[in-house]
């Protein structure tokens, strides 16, 4: 058995690939649900109604999808340039804590129309600062950024823990380590009344469109893709590799930092060390499921959020551990990898 490179890839194949991958992942997770002794189809029905069965659950799912879209975009733009930013989790937390610090210590008195954009910018810059460390190590010492950006996640969470235990601790939190709250007028406006869905959802979708445009229509987008496809060739063709990677890194880290800022200003209002249930890591899967396409990220994020929100209800009803959501999402990354392979190769006997 041999694999042969496909001459051309039909568009239908590229569109059906993620669908097939997700169905395969759901089938594999179904086996795990069946082993646990629960009815599989009923379990999936409960996940769907749990995520979209009511106005409340649907808005909750979209609220959960918002940070996933941003961390998914962060991973997608970096991976496309073969910049392995696995540090979105840490960048998320740094963006979040920067917003909490700036709002409670410095800028809390500014009027909302100035304050909100300023805080979002601060969150994005905090994420950029964190990713520049592994990038600098790569460019200066040629250290693979996978491990360094990943180790920085642990450092960032500990740093946040230190701040919310110390200078940023909320004295009104009964000794609980929790940051001071951002001022009320720094909170993002709601998108729908009587729900937690906030304007950050619209911002995330708008950014997906912008990133898509930048990647497909600008010189920077072309350079970042060239840097990923063939770094040596890109340099030969006159692409400034270092500069391009710095720009890609800033975009990626900025998006992840913004995800943290938006989660604080849109949902929680303050920072704890469990602000993110792994949004940074799930963003990697979201990006892969979308085949690194910024518009695809929107749908991949909604799928992932559906699994997470829906699994809660299913878990209560059927006694299946909620971790089944994480398992399904991780499985869909693996099935997507295999599916993508078959868009590029065909089996030849």
């Amino acid at each position, binding site marked *: 058995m041999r694999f042969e490179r496909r001459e051309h890839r039909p568009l239908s194949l590229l569109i059906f690939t993620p669908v097939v991958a997700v169905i395969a992942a759901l089938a594999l997770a179904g086996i795990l649900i069946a082993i646990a002794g629960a009815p599989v189809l009923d379990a999936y029905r409960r996940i769907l109604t749990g995520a979209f069965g009511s106005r409340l659950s649907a808005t909750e799912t979209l609220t959960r999808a918002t940070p996933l879209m941003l961390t998914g975009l962060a991973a997608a733009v970096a*991976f496309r340039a073969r910049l392995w930013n696995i540090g979105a989790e840490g960048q998320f937390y740094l963006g979040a804590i920067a917003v909490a610090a700036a709002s409670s210590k410095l800028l809390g008195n500014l009027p909302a129309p100035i304050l909100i954009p300023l805080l979002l910018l601060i969150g994005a810059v905090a994420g950029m600062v964190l990713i520049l460390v592994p990038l600098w190590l790569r460019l200066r*010492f040629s250290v693979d950024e996978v491990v360094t950006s*990943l180790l920085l996640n*642990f450092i960032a969470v500990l740093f946040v823990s230190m701040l919310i235990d110390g200078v940023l601790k909320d004295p009104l939190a009964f000794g609980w380590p929790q940051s001071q709250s951002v001022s009320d007028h720094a909170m993002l406006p709601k998108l729908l009344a009587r729900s937690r869905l906030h304007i950050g959802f619209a911002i995330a979708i708008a950014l997906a469109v912008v990133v898509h445009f930048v990647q497909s229509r600008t010189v920077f987008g072309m350079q970042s893709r060239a840097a990923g496809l063939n770094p040596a060739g890109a340099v030969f063709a006159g692409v400034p590799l270092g500069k391009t990677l710095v720009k890609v890194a800033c975009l990626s880290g900025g998006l992840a930092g913004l995800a943290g800022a938006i989660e604080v200003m849109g949902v929680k209002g303050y920072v704890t060390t469990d602000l993110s249930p792994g949004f940074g890591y799930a963003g990697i899967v979201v990006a892969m499921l979308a085949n690194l396409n910024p518009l695809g990220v929107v749908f991949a994020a909604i799928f992932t959020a559906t699994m997470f929100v829906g699994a809660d209800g299913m878990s209560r009803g059927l006694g299946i551990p909620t*971790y089944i959501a*994480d398992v399904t999402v*991780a499985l869909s*990354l693996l099935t997507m*990898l295999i599916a993508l392979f078959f868009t590029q190769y065909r089996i030849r006997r």
Partner: protein
Amino acid sequence: MTQLFDIIASAGLWAAILRIATPLIFGTLGALLCERAGVLNLGIEGIMTFGAMIGWLSVYHGADLWTGLLIAAIAGGVFGLLHAGLTVTLGLSQHVSGLGVTLFASSFSYYVFRLIVPLANTPPTIAPFQPIAIPGLSTLPFIGPAFFTQTAPTYLAMLIALLMAYIIFRTPVGLAIRMTGENPHAAEAQGVNPMKVRYGAVIIGSALMGMGGAFLTLSAFNSFFPTMVQGRGWICIALVVFASWRPGRALFGALLFAFFDAFQLRLQTVLSGLVPYQLFLMTPYILSIAALAVMARRARVPQALMQPYRRGER
């Protein structure tokens, strides 16, 4: 100052160093073997988590400790087979496949654990490996209690490090592994099958990772809890670079790293209240990054690392 000296002079510190180093030795050797054959295995964090879980679960359900360790090794090997299938046969990105294995293996561990052990206030425990005093050596002053009263897996880890150094540098199998990692095309021309070598290295390397995880639940602690691996896998990946892909240096690197870790734990109690404890917890990660920066340019990376090999395609 005298307090610092007291810490370094205590046998407890040196005994702790070996205990802390053991999972790192297993993991680093496992990652090193994979990378020597040209495959980066970022699945390590998840494989260690699964090894910790399945080893504990087997013993909890009546298997003896050695069987638990063996089951963890086999489970690690199965994940290695998955990673090899994706990266060697299909030639997919080793970065992404490894991350996929990690995400899957860790969430699968939590799922299986929660399914079998329902939520309880106090986690159920097992009777872990007990320290073995080596006759004659354990009564030596100072180094006796430190180096010769460890649990069996610690001795095993050291033994494997020496064995692996011998195999890699002194045997035909080792030569085949190194050639495959440097230049699979040349290896093939010499009659070596690079695919088989890579499969073998990734499966055995991943089995070692599974054992490293199992050490945590079968020897260091007596129960399993989510996130207990705490980035040890990623530290192992950094240690491989620090060790310049040499098993002997991997052993040394893991011990050096464990020294700093054990030292900061004790320093923490001396300086409690003066310095936030989070700064101490950061040190292992900061040290790993520093080690990477120092060693990365000096180290000789296996030339074919992360390059998929396809016959007749370059």
